[in-house]
């Protein structure tokens, strides 16, 4: 989550960061007006540190958020979510525990697993 204050909201910071870093920044949602704004972006994990630093250097407040959360106390390892996931982010490990790979998850652009979960253990964030 990128937060832009009133002072910097009119600058083309996101485009500058994309050009300077030469890496794609996928905008998932954006709310902007003259008072400031918030943009939720998805950044490739390999470039994350660099890109976050670039935004911070330009005065943007950066909150690193997970896209999805699995409550392991609620999860009963049934697997209803596993066959649904198009990214193979939800899989069984060797002990038949359902594990979530947050790096692979597409977050709110997908969300197929959320209503498939029988114990409502999966929550999308952002």
């Amino acid at each position, binding site marked *: 989550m990128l937060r832009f204050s009133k002072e910097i909201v009119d600058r083309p910071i996101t485009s500058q960061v994309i050009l300077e870093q030469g890496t794609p920044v996928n905008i998932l949602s954006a709310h902007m007006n003259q008072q400031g704004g918030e943009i939720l972006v998805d950044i490739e994990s390999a470039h994350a540190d660099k890109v976050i630093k670039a935004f911070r250097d330009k005065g943007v407040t950066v909150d690193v958020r997970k896209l999805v959360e699995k409550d392991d106390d609620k999860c*009963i*390892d*049934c*697997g*209803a979510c*596993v*066959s*649904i996931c198009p990214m193979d982010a939800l899989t*069984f490990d060797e*002990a*038949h*525990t359902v594990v979530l790979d947050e790096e692979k998850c597409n977050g709110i652009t997908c969300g*197929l697993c959320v*209503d*498939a979960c*029988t*114990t*409502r253990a999966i929550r999308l964030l952002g």
Partner: protein
Amino acid sequence: MESSGVQVAYKEVDVVTTGTFGAMCSSGAIINLGHADPPIKIQNAWLNDVPIPHPGAAVDLYIGATIGSETKPSEYGGAHVIEDLIRGKEVELRATAYGTDCYPRTRIETTLTKEDLNQFYLLNFRNGYQRYSCATNGRDETIYTYMGKLLPRYRNATYSGAGELNPLTNDPDYETIGLGTRIFLGGGQGYVIGEGTQHNPKSRLGTISVRGDAKKMSPEFIRGASFTNYGTSLYVGIGIPIPLLNEGIAKKASIRDEEIVTDIVDYGIPRRDKGAIRDTNYKELKSGRIDINGRDVKVTSLSSLKTAHKITETLKTWIEGASFYLSQHVEKLPTDTVFKPMKQTGETAFVESIVHEAVTCREDERIEEVAQRLVNRSVNHVVVVDGQGKLSGIVTSWDITKSIANGKKTLKDIIVRNVHTTSLNDPLETASRTLAQHNISALPVVDGERRVLGIVTSEDISRLLGGARSG
């Protein structure tokens, strides 16, 4: 146990422990509340807003797992009330009655925990299916079933049961499991109290009914579940010890996943007999991938293999530590019962009975030609087909009106491509549900290859249903 080692196993192993942890809808719990002062003979009751449709005499209630709460029917139900009680949580009771000379009270509201109850026992009338079908969906839309969420056009599949760990699978002729068999139930101990409803031994689809003290159970092995757009269900952990009394029993208990055959079924077909796409086995299912009509499909369980393993281990530890004693059954499960379909006195109508010829057009026709056809044939829908007669879209009189208003000139610009369809075998209720869900007025009738066989409209359906009612 490898089958080559059956003799060795029979000599060295006394008991095989089995286990499963899956959604078992035909589950519930009996509670006895004790008497209020003045007493009440409960007619209607709610626990945490979940209606209790079948109270017993005065203060006995049966909490059915699948009954949804009045406020959030598919999120919270009887199954969750049972789990909350097992967790020691307080639940709210609301009850009404008509009042009698001996039970004058007509209303009561109170809170209860399991400690306040006289009896709280799980009483499940159908659990532990020997094996179960693997579910997939051939329809064009996602469906929500008791077998979970099934994506369109065979994009995923689900199955249930623990395969070679499953209790009845290891004793397929019910030689050791019967009425009176002591079992692991929900983290506590319980008993098999007979065959389950729909017990179908000849098709290797046996079931059991069970009972056990829920006060001693654990939420690790009894869990409320919500199946979106279906309702609630209860995950139940069951473990059954199988004493290897002879070599025959030992051999049967050495069954492997690849020997347990089940079928892949299209849950997109809204009929009782869905037919099978093909056979499969639990080894293939547990591999996570199956082939359906030539495509590689992800398949996963709905029951937890992890918890099933934990149940078999726990039961083993109990037996070794002498905190669980095997019991001999007092009566065998039947091996000759049949599972009959429901007797229906009224006739059910299917799409087949009202389908009529569809007025069709090709994509390259002019809007004016299509408009002319709508007028000449007095219809509101024209089905767009390709050279092989396969569905490629639909155009309604409304779409044509809009094209005039918006200045659209070619048919291609106004064709609706995402068309909901039905098939000859669909019950009218299903077609009518699709029309209502998507707020549309007609459905092309197609076959498996999407060839257009005709059309049904909401007018056809209401005419028939209206006629059936008045007739």
